[in-house]
C-alpha cells in the first residue's frame, strides 16, 4: 500500500472517530495535536488561516444563534457550542493535513476512474478560476459593471457561452488526447 492511500485510510478513520466521539476534552486534545503535527511537519501557517477563514462565519453564526436560543430555553449553551466548534475544526484540519501532506489523486488510485476524474476536473477548475478572474478584470477595466443593463447582460452571456463552449470542446479534445495515448486500448 502506498503512503497516500494509507493516509486516506487514516483520514477516514479520523473522521469516523471524530464524528462518534462527543467528549470535549478528547476533541480539544485532538485539535491541539493535529495543529502541532501540521506545524512540525512544515505545513504553511497561511493554509491554516485560510482554512479557519472558510468556516469561521458558519461557526460564528451557529454559535450566536444557539446562545440566543438558550436564553429562551434556559439551558447552558456552552457545552454544545464548544462541542460543535471543536468537532468542526478537528475535521477541517484533518482534511487540510491530508491534502497538504498526501497526494489525494494517488490516494484514490484504487479506483482508476476516480483518480483520472479528479486530475482532469481539478486541472480544469484551475483553468476556469483563472479565466473567471480575468473576465472580472475585463469587466472592471471596461467599466461593464457600471454600464447599462443591456451591456451587463451581454457581457454575462458572452462569459457563460465561453465557459460552456470551452467545457464541451475540452471534453472532446481530452477524449482524443486520451485515445491517442492509448487509454482505451486495454481495459
Amino acid at each position, binding site marked *: 500500500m502506498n503512503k497516500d492511500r494509507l493516509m486516506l485510510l487514516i483520514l477516514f478513520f479520523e473522521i469516523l472517530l471524530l464524528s462518534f466521539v462527543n467528549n470535549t476534552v478528547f476533541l480539544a486534545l485532538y485539535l491541539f495535536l493535529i495543529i502541532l503535527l501540521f506545524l512540525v511537519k512544515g505545513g504553511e501557517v497561511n493554509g491554516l488561516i485560510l482554512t479557519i477563514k472558510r468556516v469561521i462565519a458558519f461557526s460564528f453564526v451557529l454559535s450566536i444563534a444557539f446562545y440566543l436560543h438558550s436564553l429562551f430555553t434556559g439551558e447552558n449553551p456552552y457545552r454544545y457550542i464548544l462541542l460543535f466548534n471543536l468537532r468542526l475544526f478537528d475535521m477541517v484540519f484533518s482534511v487540510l493535513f491530508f491534502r497538504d501532506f498526501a*497526494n489525494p489523486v494517488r490516494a484514490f488510485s484504487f479506483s482508476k476512474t476516480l483518480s483520472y476524474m479528479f*486530475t482532469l476536473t481539478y486541472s480544469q477548475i*484551475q483553468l476556469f478560476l483563472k479565466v473567471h478572474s480575468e473576465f472580472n478584470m475585463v469587466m472592471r477595466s471596461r467599466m461593464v459593471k457600471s454600464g447599462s443593463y443591456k451591456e451587463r447582460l451581454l457581457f454575462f452571456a458572452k462569459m457563460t457561452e465561453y465557459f460552456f463552449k470551452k467545457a464541451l470542446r475540452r471534453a472532446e479534445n481530452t477524449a*482524443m*488526447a486520451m485515445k*491517442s*495515448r*492509448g487509454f482505451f*486500448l*486495454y481495459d
Partner: protein
Amino acid sequence: MIELLDIDFYFGKTPALKDINITIKEGEKIVLLGPNGSGKSTLLKIIAGLIFPKKGKYLYNGVHINARKLKDKEFEKTFRKSVQIMFQEPDIMLFNPSVYEEIAFGPLLFGMYNVEERVKRISDLLGITGLLKRPVYLLSGGEKAKVALASILVLEPALLLLDEPTAYLDIKSTKKLCGIIKEGSFTTLVAMHDIHIAKHFGRRFIVISKEHRVVFDGTYSELLKSNVVENYSFFEPEEIECNREKAYEKR
C-alpha cells in the same frame, strides 16, 4: 509514409480544411504554417487518426486510416504507438497522479521494457527530473508542456506530431526541442505560426491559408522568395535581429 488525398473537413457546416493533398516521406522534418483558425490542429488530428476526413483519403504506410480500420484493436495498438501527437493545450493530455506515472503510462501500456530507465532518460533530457514525484495538477503551464512532450517522446514514435509546442516553452527549452527534432530519426510535423522560430524546426514548409487550403510547399529560401509571404501577411518577412553596432573599433 503519409499520403493525404483530396481531403476536406468540416465541423458541422464550418469548413476547417479544403482540398488537402500532401505526401510525406519517412524521416522528413516538416513545419506546418498558417494563421489561427486555418486548420493546422485539425490536420494533425486527422493524421493522428483521431478524426476522419469528410471527403478524401488518408493513407499511413499504405493503409487507409478510417474509423472502421481503427476498430481493429491490434492495428490500433501499433498505429497509436507509432504516431504520437502533442495537443495545442498540453494539459488536456495529462491525467495521471504524478509526473512519473504520466511519463511511464505509455511505455507500460504498450509493454516496453526498461520503463524506469526510459522515463529517467527522457526527463533528464527535458530537465524535469526534479518534478517526477509531483502531482501533475500542481504544475505550471510550461512544466505541463514538458511533461506532455516527455510522455510522447518516451514512446519513440515513428511519427511525431506537435501542435504549437513552443507556445508554453521558454527559449532554452525551445532550443532543446528543435535539437531533439533535428537529431531524432522520427518523421516530424510541427504546427506553428511564428516563421522565425519555425525555420529551425524543419526543412520543408507547408503553408495553409485562412481559406483552409495549402498555398505553399517548399524550402525555407523558396518560401521567402515566394509571394506567400506578401499575400498572407500573418508573418513578418523581416527577421528580427540585433544590429551589429560597434562600440569599439577592432584593433
